[in-house]
């Protein structure tokens, strides 16, 4: 009798302990994603600082405001249709209310009127997980923002940000960045920390936009040689990059799935086992290799050295869950060097005015990242079907993402160009966006300086006013 009673008490204790452990696990996961979201805010503080520093002073405030307002538009659009796109389109297009997938639980939880979006006491994770993805969306939209500064309209950027941040990238994420996406299931596509899914697609989208937007007035000489606009505060730009780097640790962590009751406690987005430490290790070696490659390829140029760090990390992201540190270091170094050359080629040979090198740093490095997995990390089972990663699968993903990103960016900006709402009037561009959009009296008198200058292709620095006014008539907008 007593023995039975003791056994029952022990059983109740075990049950209580188990319940507490489960609750602890849930709250641990909730807190984990919450803090990744907080850390990822630094990416946006960084993008703002980075791009504002690159801008000429007459465009500084407009550049900063553009970044901040990304949050104002991508947040609701991602909530109203972005999360639905991710949860309901993983098997591929088209899906809709009559699709069998639409009735699935995952899909239902993605619709904006789902009860999982409120304070649902039975689901602690859904909202913080949604927020982590929302921060990914801000990041993706912000990648495009820097490339188009100093001549794109704020409203045009905001609409493009919604398209990229709340539709395009999340659609490719549904296809290739989920355990049940068709690229994953059929081809073993492997992009664990979103080299291509976020950065590659954003770079391709940006390139499409830049083709329609055109260069800044005065960027190229009549002969097609590239001039340089001097950043108004390079220190601010470098600080911004450092903030982005810090935020990237949160980004990387948020790309993992925490499963604290299952060994080893962590899984990548494809639900394959990994560890937080291994991911953090690769990101750090990615920075190291990227800085080094960027420094030597650019012969010590500060902008490209630090941008090389970003390119390095992006290039190792796809395989960060399986790479050895040395491989990550070498891949990042080589990729950063390639990105420097690609950036120069895009600017000087292709005459695409990408103010911050986003197409090279994010686009080229992102696609390289996908490629490297096929070259160096084939054979890792990926997704619910356990299809091995392979060069074929990676090429399939690249062949899908490149047109998806480029064509949507090109078409959306083409429509805006036809409606004459893509670019500011030339008068505004010459005077500076701050004057037209915000308070013109931004600067203290003691901050006055002789005037805006421009760096000619031969390296001479000359006052810009006459060049810009002449160039206004040379540039076909």
């Amino acid at each position, binding site marked *: 009798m007593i023995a039975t009673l003791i056994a029952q008490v022990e059983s109740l204790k075990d049950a209580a302990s188990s319940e507490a452990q489960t609750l602890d696990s849930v709250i641990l996961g909730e807190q984990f994603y919450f803090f990744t979201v907080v850390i990822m805010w630094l990416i946006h503080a960084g993008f703002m600082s980075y791009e504002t520093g690159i801008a000429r002073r007459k465009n500084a405030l407009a550049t900063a405001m553009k970044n901040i307002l990304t949050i104002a538009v991508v947040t609701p659009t991602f909530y109203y249709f972005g999360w639905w796109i991710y949860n309901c389109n993983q098997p591929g297009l088209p899906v809709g209310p009559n699709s069998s997938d639409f009735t699935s639980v995952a899909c239902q939880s993605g619709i904006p009127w789902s009860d999982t979006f409120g304070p649902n006491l039975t689901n602690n994770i859904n909202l913080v997980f949604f927020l982590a993805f929302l921060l990914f969306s801000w990041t993706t939209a912000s990648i495009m923002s820097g490339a188009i500064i100093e001549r794109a309209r704020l409203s045009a950027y905001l609409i493009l940000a919604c398209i990229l941040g709340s539709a395009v990238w999340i659609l490719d994420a549904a296809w290739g960045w989920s355990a049940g996406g068709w690229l994953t299931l059929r081809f073993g596509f492997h992009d664990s920390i979103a080299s291509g899914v976020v950065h590659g697609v954003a770079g391709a989208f940006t390139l499409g936009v830049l083709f329609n937007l055109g260069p800044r007035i005065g960027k190229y000489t009549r002969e097609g040689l590239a001039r340089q606009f001097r950043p108004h505060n390079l220190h601010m730009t470098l600080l911004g990059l450092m903030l982005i780097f810090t935020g990237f640790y949160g980004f990387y962590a948020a790309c993992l799935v925490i499963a604290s009751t299952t060994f080893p406690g962590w899984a990548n987005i494809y639900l394959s086992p990994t560890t937080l430490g291994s991911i953090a290790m690769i990101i750090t070696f990615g920075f190291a290799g990227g800085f080094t490659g960027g420094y030597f390829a650019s012969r010590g140029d500060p902008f490209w050295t630090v941008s090389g760090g970003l390119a390095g990390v992006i290039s190792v992201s796809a395989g960060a869950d399986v790479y050895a540190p040395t491989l990550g270091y070498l891949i990042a170094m080589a990729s950063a060097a390639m990105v420097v050359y690609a950036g120069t080629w895009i600017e000087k040979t292709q005459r695409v005015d990408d103010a911050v090198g986003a197409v090279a740093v994010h686009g080229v490095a992102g696609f390289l990242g996908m490629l490297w997995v096929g070259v160096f990390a084939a054979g890792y089972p990926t997704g619910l079907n356990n299809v091995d990663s392979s060069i074929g699968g990676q090429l399939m993903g690249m062949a899908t993402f490149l047109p998806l990103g480029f064509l949507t960016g090109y078409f959306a900006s083409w429509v805006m160009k036809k409606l004459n709402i893509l670019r*500011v009037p030339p008068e*505004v561009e010459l005077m500076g966006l701050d004057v037209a959009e915000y308070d013109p009296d931004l600067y203290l008198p003691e901050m006055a300086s002789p005037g*805006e200058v421009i760096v000619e292709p031969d390296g001479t620095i000359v006052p810009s006013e006459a060049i810009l006014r002449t160039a206004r008539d040379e540039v076909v907008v």
Partner: protein
Amino acid sequence: MPGIINSAPDCVTHAAGSEKARVDDSADFILQADYSDCAGFMTFGPGSTYGDEGTGADTAYMILTWLGIVVMVLVLVAWVLYENRRLIQFAVGYRAGGPTTGPPPQPGGVGDSQ
């Protein structure tokens, strides 16, 4: 005093008082008696126990959501129109004789320390 809009779902019971904290666990202080029938209770939401997780809400919450979608679209359109008007006004004023204030001074010139 009642609120102007009482959006609490029916699962919120408004029972007098609530369970007292358990004496053997001082951390157990969440006053959840009024909400014990609720899986969730967001404003205008369906409330009650939801049953299958993820089923869509209906009526008031659906209307609220679509209201948000309409506002989101209107905001984007307004942003385009407002900025367009502002930029055109500036450009017209510039062509007519220039703005009343000049552009802010730019760094990087000869003798500039920046």
